């Protein structure tokens, strides 16, 4: 039981996808200007990533491994993920058009949110079982959402700061992300005691 909890904690904090694993940065930088959109993107990613973790575990475990087709893993995973994303996109477009417009190019780019492929691959590498895979996917995407939302909070406030001109906009955002990553290094080691 507790190992499941540690999987989640490790994925959320200690090995935060964004700050420690350096995955999923494009949406992290792109969709964090406003709190609202950050939350939306986080939710979308959580949904896709959790689903993708489960599905790819099933595919890997029941289709690829039995037939010794490990070299197809990248392809199979990414195709499944792409399809899930596309489905999500269609559903969001129908149910929340504004969210769809705002998430703009990023929704299809969830496919290439490295995290979405990276996490299922890591699941395989870490030899997680189905539940662990789901939890790891969920935890990682919660970590992603958390990073995104906290970052958006800071960026909203940065709007008012008298930042030196060349640093305005993405440069200072990047540097802020650096400080956040520095802070997250403080969690290092917390998962060794699981």
């Amino acid at each position: 039981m507790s190992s499941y909890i540690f999987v989640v904690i490790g994925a959320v904090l200690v090995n935060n996808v964004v700050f420690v694993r350096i995955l999923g940065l494009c949406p992290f930088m792109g969709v964090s200007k406003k709190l609202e959109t950050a939350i939306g993107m986080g939710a979308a990613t959580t949904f896709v990533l959790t689903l993708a973790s489960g599905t790819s575990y099933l595919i890997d475990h029941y289709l690829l491994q039995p037939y010794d087709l490990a070299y197809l893993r990248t392809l199979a995973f990414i195709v499944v993920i792409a399809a899930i994303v596309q489905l999500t996109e269609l559903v969001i477009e129908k149910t929340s058009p504004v969210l769809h417009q705002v998430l703009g190019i990023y929704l299809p780019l969830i496919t290439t949110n490295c995290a979405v492929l990276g996490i299922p691959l890591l699941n395989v590498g870490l030899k997680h079982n189905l539940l662990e895979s789901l939890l790891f996917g969920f935890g990682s995407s919660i970590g992603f959402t958390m990073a995104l939302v906290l970052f958006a909070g800071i960026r909203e406030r940065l709007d008012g700061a008298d930042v030196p001109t060349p640093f305005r906009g993405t440069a200072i955002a990047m540097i802020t992300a650096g400080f956040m990553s520095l802070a997250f290094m403080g969690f290092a080691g917390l998962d060794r005691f699981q």
Partner: protein
Amino acid sequence: MLTALLIMTGIAIVLGAALGYASIRFKVEGDPLVEKIDAILPQTQCGQCGYPGCKPYAQAISNGEADINQCPPGGEEGIRKLADLLGREFKPLSEEHGHEKPKSVAFINEQLCIGCTLCIQACPVDAIVGAAKQMHTVVSPLCTGCELCVAPCPVDCIAMVPVGETVETWKWKYPVIELRPAA
């Protein structure tokens, strides 16, 4: 090789069918975004953006045909709001579409007006009151200052006068930040 092909084909068939179905099941109609964009545009209806009125321009932005910086009456303020709504980066007003001007209203010189009704026809918001061969008058609270009535007037009796400040419309100024010396 064969198993690989079979497995991947199976995956592809399932996913392809699901997607094809979803794309029809979840087809979107209507575009609430246009309304949102239109709500930001100033409704001057001047056509400077290159579209016949604000709504068509909103439609064009939503379709990705027009840029967000083509509306001079909306000014930088408006562009900023559009950029915010659409998650794009702010850019300054495009030069070819004109410049931001202080708000004005049309004023018809009562002595000169011959009552030709040309201005009435030009005005997009029905802000001009009058009838044929009668002197016309601009109802200034309704006038958006689009200047469309100025050109058609055959006797040049329409002038745009800037709207003056009253106690009601007076605004507090942005406090000067002493830290930033005037560059």
